[in-house]
């Protein structure tokens, strides 16, 4: 017979969001159990780039959330025992047409109005940051606060620290049902046994919809595939994060920044590049709704490589040694879903980060831990409520 366990809080999902929530809960002295179906960082957190990018967030609540999160990273880098490779390296957003430039200027203005430092660069200025850019590049914007981090190390580091503070991590443990009585969460049934708990956080990423069904709540999170190419390791050649304006276009659904050709539009192609601490370039990426298929495809590999050559022609002689695909937990508007559920006490949602999970993990952790333990949050999370979609 499976044993019966209990915990003050159960966090469903051992990705970066679950790990961050567990970490901040433990810092407040809570008793936490992470239930992970596979292994830590086995989903999107282990198959993504390490962008902690601010200038790609939508001005408003989204940006404020991200800026809050960005402030938490240096402290995390300090506190975690694992080197999370956090570097405030700055980020470039490149435009390949005057229309895109115009759009970027408008956005920069809006971002600045919210207090984010963003600089508009002419084509000539871009060369200060990159050895060489493609002829199509007309300029871009630069945000010095953009940073990068190793997403796997971040997830593992958060989980490890949480564990040291008393959290239990159940790996290979699948949630089968959530018992609600008298409008309150009571119990979580898992393949490893039942866990008595009055507080359950759903941080299950692309599995959140399935978890929601257990309590008859529709959590509108769909898997969105993003493919990435990995190159051989090189000496440092890329100081900053680099993204193409189309990345922003496909991410935030901005018509003026969408890829021009039909094939790229179909793939949701947007250029991203970063160099990891180990020297590999990660080149992205796509946005495709293909269910739970996390294979890479010939079309996307070709398209990503072709796109990379457009922006950074000097990558031509670099070897691609691997590709991978992750499934972003995507919400209808691309913003996270944070908060409680009407009519069920003790159930909290922290999902739908739509590709911003790494960036928003610290602030999600802090906010959800406040919500779980105090019932209120220092940051207004009303804009991220599940009920904004209704």
């Amino acid at each position, binding site marked *: 017979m499976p044993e019966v366990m209990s915990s003050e809080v159960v966090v469903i999902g051992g990705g970066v969001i679950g790990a961050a929530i567990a970490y901040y809960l433990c810092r407040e002295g809570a008793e936490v159990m992470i239930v992970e179906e596979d292994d830590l960082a086995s989903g999107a957190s282990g198959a993504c780039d390490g962008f902690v990018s601010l200038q790609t967030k939508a001005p408003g609540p989204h940006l404020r959330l991200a800026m809050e999160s960005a402030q938490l990273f240096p402290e995390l880098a300090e506190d975690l025992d694992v080197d999370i490779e956090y570097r405030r390296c700055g980020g470039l957003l490149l435009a390949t047409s005057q229309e895109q430039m115009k759009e970027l200027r408008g956005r920069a203005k809006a971002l600045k109005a919210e207090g984010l430092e963003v600089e508009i660069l002419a084509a000539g200025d871009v060369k200060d940051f990159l050895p060489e850019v493609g002829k199509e590049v007309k300029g871009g914007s630069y945000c010095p606060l953009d940073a990068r981090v190793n997403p796997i190390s971040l997830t593992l580091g958060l989980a490890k620290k949480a564990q040291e503070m008393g959290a239990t991590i159940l790996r290979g443990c699948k949630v089968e049902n959530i018992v609600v009585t008298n409008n309150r969460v009571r119990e979580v049934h898992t393949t490893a046994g039942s866990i008595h708990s009055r507080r359950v956080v759903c941080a299950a990423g692309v599995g959140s919809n399935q978890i929601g069904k257990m309590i008859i709540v529709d959590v509108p999170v769909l898997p969105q595939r993003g493919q990435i190419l990995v190159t*051989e390791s090189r*000496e440092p050649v890329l100081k900053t994060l680099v993204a193409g304006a189309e990345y922003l276009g496909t991410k935030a659904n901005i018509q003026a920044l969408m890829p021009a050709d039909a094939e790229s539009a179909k793939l949701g192609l947007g250029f991203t590049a970063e160099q990891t601490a180990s020297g590999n370039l990660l080149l992205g990426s796509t946005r495709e709704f293909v269910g739970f298929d996390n294979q890479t495809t010939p079309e996307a590999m070709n398209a990503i490589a072709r796109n990379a050559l457009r922006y950074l022609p000097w990558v*031509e*002689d*670099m*070897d691609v040694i691997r590709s991978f695909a992750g499934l972003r937990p995507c919400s209808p508007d691309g913003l996270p879903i944070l908060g409680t559920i009407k009519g069920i006490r003790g159930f909290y949602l922290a999902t739908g980060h739509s590709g911003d999970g790494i960036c928003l993990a610290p602030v999600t952790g802090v906010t959800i831990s406040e919500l779980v333990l105090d019932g209120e949050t220092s940051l207004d999370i009303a804009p991220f409520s599940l009920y904004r979609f209704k």
Partner: protein
Amino acid sequence: MKKGKGCEGKAPGMRVRGHPVLGEPPGGREITVFLDGKPLPAREGEPLAAALFASGIRVAHYAAEGREPRGPFCMIGRCTECRMVLEGKGMVLTCLTPAEEGMRLHTPGRRGKP
């Protein structure tokens, strides 16, 4: 114990001559490639790694921040230990890259070098 003849310093001359089954090697055109700036004889079309072996050179690159020399291990393009930088091409597997006149090879990773 008999001291192996070949253990101290390999001079050029590692080509197989007068093979009892295969006879003399088919004569590819003698060409020159460059290793870290120094000329090196090679036969046109043979893998670069073979040309290096022919001159007794077995270090392809340095790993572990320049501490560890590495050389060809599988000769069929799988181990990737034979990789070197070929000017204009980037990193190549020398066991699969045919030698051409004037190619310039560089030993990557050596400490104190780019």
